[in-house]
């Protein structure tokens, strides 16, 4: 029994090293202007604020990821985005798994308060995230998602709550 306890202590101590590395890297990113990969970044500070009418979001076809910041909490992350019928959409997968729900907190925050800032190619856009969880529009959105990314997102997955889709609407709406 004593041997088991000792082995357990050694393993836990050794595990502490990678855990410390991950926590430190995540904390460091929180102070940065924007996210990197999976770790949330701080508020999006740099970049001109877009004014005027919405752009033609078709230019997103050439852009793999965008930066998204919620106003509350003021943290940013890098996410996939696509356009469909002249509107911009973002989404989050893995929402049906425990690890996914622990990892992806922003969709829950966004459903509560959808005010957001996007940064695309160095330009910031003030927007409002509006969740879409059902409807025929999902056929077009999921089709746009799967044609742009190696994703198996389906309308059924969205309606089952495994994938949360948001329209990135103008803030005034």
């Amino acid at each position: 029994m004593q041997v088991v306890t000792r082995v357990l202590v050694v393993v836990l101590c050794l595990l502490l090293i990678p855990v410390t590395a991950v926590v430190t890297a995540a904390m460091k990113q929180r102070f940065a202007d924007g996210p990197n990969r999976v770790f949330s970044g701080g508020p999006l500070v740099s970049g001109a604020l877009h004014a005027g009418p919405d752009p033609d979001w078709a230019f997103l076809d050439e852009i793999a990821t965008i930066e998204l910041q919620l106003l509350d909490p003021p943290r940013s992350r890098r996410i996939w985005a696509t356009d469909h019928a002249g509107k911009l959409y973002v989404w989050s997968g893995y929402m049906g798994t425990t690890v996914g729900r622990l990892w992806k907190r922003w969709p829950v925050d966004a459903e509560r308060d959808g005010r957001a800032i996007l940064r695309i190619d160095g330009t910031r856009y003030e927007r409002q995230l509006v969740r879409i969880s059902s409807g025929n529009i999902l056929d077009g959105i999921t089709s746009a998602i799967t044609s742009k990314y190696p994703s198996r997102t389906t309308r059924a997955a969205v309606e089952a709550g495994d994938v949360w889709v948001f329209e990135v609407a103008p803030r005034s709406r």
Partner: protein
Amino acid sequence: MSGSSKSHHAPDDNRRKTVTHFYKFIAIALVTTVLAVLFIPGVDEFIEQTFQRYLGRAAR
């Protein structure tokens, strides 16, 4: 008599020293890890990339 007592305590002392060395090693490793992630360029990126790979697998 005293020689017998000494040999009886020697393994305990050795074990205690080993444990102390191990904890010191862990403490130094932790401090080194924090400093490396904070100040050596590319280390934070490597950590995040590795973590992303693990998360992607775990979330499936």
